């Protein structure tokens, strides 16, 4: 056991003296967080460019029959108004849903950037001149697009307020005067005038942010998590280098002539990669939360557990890369390739919510995807340790599979 620890510490010391290793493990993620965090301004989680921002409308309103006029179905009108608007449809992909609970859950998960819920009895309340509320849900991770949606809904509410005031005024005046319908036109004109002047809004918009208080999340928050999830995996490349060098320079053979068991050697190499990654994780966490004011969420234990599980996968990947690449050059090519593909599929460079639904699950073939998903759940959705157990389990599964295949291949090659 002591030998295992000393092998790990020896590796750690070697890496801490290697400017290239430190640059890749610490310098690159910090720089990329800064670049992506500012260049991708406004692109938070759950967002996308034209036509892609996912929002939903739930219309729970029941039409009321107004004897004075036709049927009043404001929920349906609002829906039509939003869906038929060309400008809106260029920006949003609007989904019409019946299930308010499901929509709330989707916003909380970040699958939807925002949603509008027209409550039951909305038309009746408007018709009776009662104050009413429209409910807007926002994903805190999708700051910009949710903001746009909220603005749109507010302007709809203003329109509605006017209509509401007009309708009330017109009805009242007509009833009092017993006037013929021709006169209503004049009355409406007057009412519109009054409505325009009215400070009071008959329809209020209530905005709810999913599960979260305080500052909304921005790109810096997103990329701090995603680059950490990506670069924790780079330990596998340096681990593979180290395994290959020990084999080529015959320090591994020499070690195996001492009373050190083979398992202690492998274990020591794994622990070394793990310690390097733990140090890296600590530095990135401290730097992003301390210097960049990034909020990692309310459950550091959950975040730490995800990081530890990812580092186990990193250590396993080192053995796998070493078993395939066989030379330092090979590992230097293969390692970054594997890591970048995983980062891309895992959403490290851009949020996967811009992909079509059927492609969303690609994140689950990526170590980075599982780690980032877990980090984000803690950050934006208030997830705790129990909620991220699937992520931890999946990462541990990757660790076992990578390590198993790697060791089997190395044994086979002897």
């Amino acid at each position, binding site marked *: 056991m*002591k*030998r295992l620890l*000393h092998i790990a510490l*020896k590796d750690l*010391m*070697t890496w801490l*003296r*290697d400017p290239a290793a430190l640059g890749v493990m610490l310098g690159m993620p910090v720089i990329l967080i800064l670049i992506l965090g500012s260049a991708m301004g406004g692109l938070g989680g759950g967002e996308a460019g034209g036509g892609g921002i996912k929002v939903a409308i739930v219309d729970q309103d029941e039409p009321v029959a107004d004897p004075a006029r036709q049927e009043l179905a404001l929920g349906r009108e609002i829906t039509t108004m939003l869906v038929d608007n060309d400008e809106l449809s260029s920006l949003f992909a609007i989904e019409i849903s019946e299930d308010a609970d499901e929509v709330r859950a989707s916003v909380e998960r970040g699958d939807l950037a925002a949603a509008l819920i027209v409550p039951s009895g909305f038309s009746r309340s408007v018709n009776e001149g009662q104050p009413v509320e429209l409910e807007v849900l926002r994903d805190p991770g999708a700051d910009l697009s949710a903001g746009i949606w909220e603005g749109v809904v507010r302007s709809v509410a203003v329109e509605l307020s006017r209509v509401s005031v007009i309708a009330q005024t017109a009805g009242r005046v007509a009833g009092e005067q017993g006037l013929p319908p021709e006169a209503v036109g004049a009355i409406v004109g007057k009412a519109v005038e009054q409505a325009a002047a009215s400070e009071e809004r008959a329809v209020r918009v209530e905005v709810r942010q999913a599960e979260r208080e305080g500052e909304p999340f921005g790109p810096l928050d997103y990329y701090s998590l995603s680059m950490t999830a990506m670069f924790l995996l780079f330990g596998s490349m340096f681990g593979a280098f180290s395994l290959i060098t020990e084999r080529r*320079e*015959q*320090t591994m*053979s*020499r*070690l*195996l*002539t*001492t*009373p*050190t*068991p083979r398992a202690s050697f492998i274990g020591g190499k794994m622990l070394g990669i793990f310690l390097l990654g733990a140090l890296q994780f600590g530095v990135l966490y401290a730097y992003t939360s301390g210097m960049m004011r990034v909020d990692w969420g309310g459950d550091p234990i959950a975040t730490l557990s995800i990081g530890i599980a990812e580092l186990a996968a990193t250590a396993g990947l080192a053995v796998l890369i070493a078993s395939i690449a066989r030379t330092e050059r090979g590992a230097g090519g293969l390692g970054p390739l594997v890591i970048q593909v995983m980062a891309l599929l895992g959403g490290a460079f851009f949020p996967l919510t811009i992909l079509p639904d059927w492609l969303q699950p690609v994140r689950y073939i990526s170590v980075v995807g599982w780690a980032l998903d877990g980090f984000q759940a803690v950050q934006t959705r208030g997830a705790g340790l129990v909620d991220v157990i699937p992520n931890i389990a999946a990462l541990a599964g990757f660790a076992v599979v990578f390590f198993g295949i790697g060791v089997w291949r190395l044994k086979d090659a002897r």
Partner: protein
Amino acid sequence: MSGIVEVNGLTKLFGDLVAVDHVEFSIAQGEIFGLLGPNGAGKTTTISMISGLLEPTGGDVLVDGHSVRTEPRAVKRKLGVVPQEVALYPTLTARENLQFWGRMYGLRGKELSSAVDEALELAGLADRARERIEKYSGGMKRRINIAAGILHHPKVLLMDEPTVGIDPQSRNHILEQVKGLRGSGMTVLYTSHYMEEVEFLCDRVAIVDHGKVIAMGTLEELRKLVGDADIVRIGVDETLAEESLVAVRAVPGVIQAERADSVLEALAADGGGALAGIISALNAAGEKVHSAEVVEPNLESVFLHLTGKSLRD
């Protein structure tokens, strides 16, 4: 037989190649035992099997009574190994390297730090102990390479060609250091293809070629194998014709003759007497003679006598 190292019928096949072929020897406690043979003779393969790195195809090795096949860890606890290639961590300092290897051999705490100090002193590198060894010369690296296998005072030290490719000063330092181990109780198995080293260091020697032990004994015993014969060493052109070699072998008194690069070596009962005949035979064959000397019987002449080959190639 009750040597501290017992090698019995040790055999290793690499595919069809018989790298080590039923090798047998026994080393007594405290002895410096030489394994002398040209490149490819199977020295490293033998050492690798003794140290548990390679599985023997056949035979076994007992170290202090423990079988390397069934109790490899018990064997490894008795050993110190100095590999043929320098196997150290270049970005660690000499001291850090020695500390690491000391720990791998099970040293801890005060015992470790005094062992490291002693090893650095012995290697003559105490004053440069804080330098990373990537900055060291080849000879200095070799000295640390040896120190790393020796610092824990193993019962049995295996040294595989520890002086290959270094400057004469470092080489002498190493040879003196190994010779200094005599009397310390440490048993040494020393492999080399330099017969001078083996003659200088070893109590007993096994001469190996093509995986087989072809002669074994004390220096005395081995020299007797060639009787009083001397080696006549002639500097010639590398283009020396085969017929000229045949002509030299036909000179009266010449037992054996072989060329390696630009040196022709002939084994002759009376070197001085045969010298003139050899030179005139070469002249008659139209070969140039650049130099000539007569060398007393040594392991080189034994090897030439037994194999018809020179050790140096």
